[in-house]
C-alpha cells in the first residue's frame, strides 16, 4: 500500500509529468484560461491516459514480448492510442448519450499529446506491474490535470488583473509560469 502511495505522490508532484518530465506542454500552453474547460479536459486526460497506459501494457505483455518484437513498441503503441480514443468515443456515445452530448468536445483534444504516449512507454521502461501501471498512469495524468488547473487559474488572474508585457504574452509567460510552478514543487523533494 505504502509503495503505491509514494508512487502517487511522486508521479503527481515530485516528478510531475509536465513540470519535471516535460510532457504534455502543448495543451498546458494552448488551452485557454477557462477554469471550467481545464477541469473537463483534465478529467478526459486522466481517462485517456489511464486507458492508453493499461492497454499498451497489456499489448506489450501479451503480444510484443511474447513474439519478441519489442522494438516495434513505438509503432504499435501510437497506433493503439490513436485508435483507442476513437473507440472510447464510440463507447461513450453508447454508454451515456446525454452525458457524451454534454462534453464530447474534450475527448479528441488529447490524442496526439506526447504525455499519453510517454506515460505508456514509461510504464514499460520502469517495468511496472499492471497495478503499478494503472496507478502510475492515473497519478501522472492527475498531476497533469493539476498543472492544467492551476495554470488556468493563474492565467485567468493574469488576464483579468495583470499587465504582462506584450512581447511575453501568451506562450512565453505561460512557460515562465510553468517554470515557477516547477520551482515551487522543489519543496516536495524527498517526500518519502
Amino acid at each position, binding site marked *: 500500500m505504502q509503495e503505491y502511495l509514494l508512487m502517487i505522490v511522486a508521479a503527481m508532484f515530485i516528478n510531475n509529468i509536465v513540470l519535471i518530465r516535460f510532457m504534455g506542454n502543448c495543451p498546458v500552453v494552448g488551452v485557454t484560461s477557462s477554469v471550467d474547460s481545464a477541469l473537463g479536459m483534465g478529467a478526459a486526460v486522466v481517462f485517456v491516459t489511464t486507458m492508453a497506459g493499461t492497454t499498451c501494457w497489456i499489448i506489450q505483455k501479451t503480444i510484443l514480448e511474447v513474439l519478441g*518484437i519489442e*522494438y*516495434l513498441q513505438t*509503432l504499435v503503441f501510437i*497506433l493503439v492510442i490513436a485508435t483507442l480514443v476513437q473507440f472510447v468515443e464510440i463507447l461513450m456515445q453508447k454508454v451515456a448519450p446525454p452525458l457524451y452530448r454534454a462534453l464530447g468536445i474534450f475527448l479528441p483534444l488529447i490524442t496526439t499529446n506526447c504525455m499519453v504516449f510517454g506515460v505508456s512507454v514509461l510504464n514499460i521502461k520502469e*517495468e511496472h506491474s499492471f497495478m503499478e501501471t494503472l496507478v502510475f498512469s492515473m497519478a501522472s495524468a492527475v498531476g497533469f490535470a493539476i498543472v492544467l488547473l492551476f495554470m488556468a487559474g493563474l492565467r485567468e488572474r493574469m488576464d483579468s488583473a495583470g499587465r504582462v508585457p506584450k512581447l511575453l504574452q501568451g506562450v512565453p509567460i505561460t512557460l515562465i509560469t510553468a517554470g515557477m510552478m516547477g520551482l515551487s514543487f522543489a519543496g516536495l523533494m524527498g517526500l518519502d
Partner: protein
Amino acid sequence: MSLREIIQMVLVLTIVAAVCAGGLAAVKMVTMEQIEYQQIKFIKEPALKKILTDYDNDPISDRIQLVTGKDARGRDVSTTFFLAKKGSQLVSLAFESTGSGYGGPIGVMIAIAPEDDVVQGIAVTTQSETPGLGTKIIDDPSFSAQFADKPLSANFSLSAAGGQIQAITGATVSSTGVSNAVNRGIELYQAVKPELDL
C-alpha cells in the same frame, strides 16, 4: 461513408502498417548485432574492465554464446562468455549471472581463470537496490573483494549461511543476491565447461 470507402481504408492502413513493420524488422535484423555489441560495450565493459587483468584482446569481440538451459516456457536460454586472451592464450573467461536482490534482479559479472578454476573477481553490472544501502554492493569495494582470487571450491555463501562472505550491514538481501548469483554462475560454468572447448 460507403462500404467501399471503409474497405479502402482498412486495406490502406493494413498495408501501410504491415510494410512499416516489415521494413523495421529488416532494419532491426541489420542492426541487431551492432546494437548487441554496443549494449555490451557500454553496460558490460566497465564491469569487465574491473575484473579482467592482464589480457591484450577485445573480450567483447571475442565472445561466444552458448545455450545454457531452458526457461519456464521451455525455450532456450543462452549465456554470453567473454574471452580474455594474452597472445592466443585464453587467460580468463567472464560471464554474467543473476541473483535476486532487494529491489529486483542483481546482475553479477564473474571472471574465472579456466586454467586453475579460480574466481578472479566479480563486479555488479545491473541492480536496483536502495541507494546508499543496498548499493554498497557496488560502492563498497571490500565487499566484492571477498570473492576475488578464491578457488571455485570455496564456499561463496554468506557467513550467516555458513560461508565465507561477510554481508553488508543492513543489506543482507542484496548481499545474498550477489552471493547467490556467484554460486549460480559457478554451477553454470561447471556445467558448460566441457562444451566450452577450451
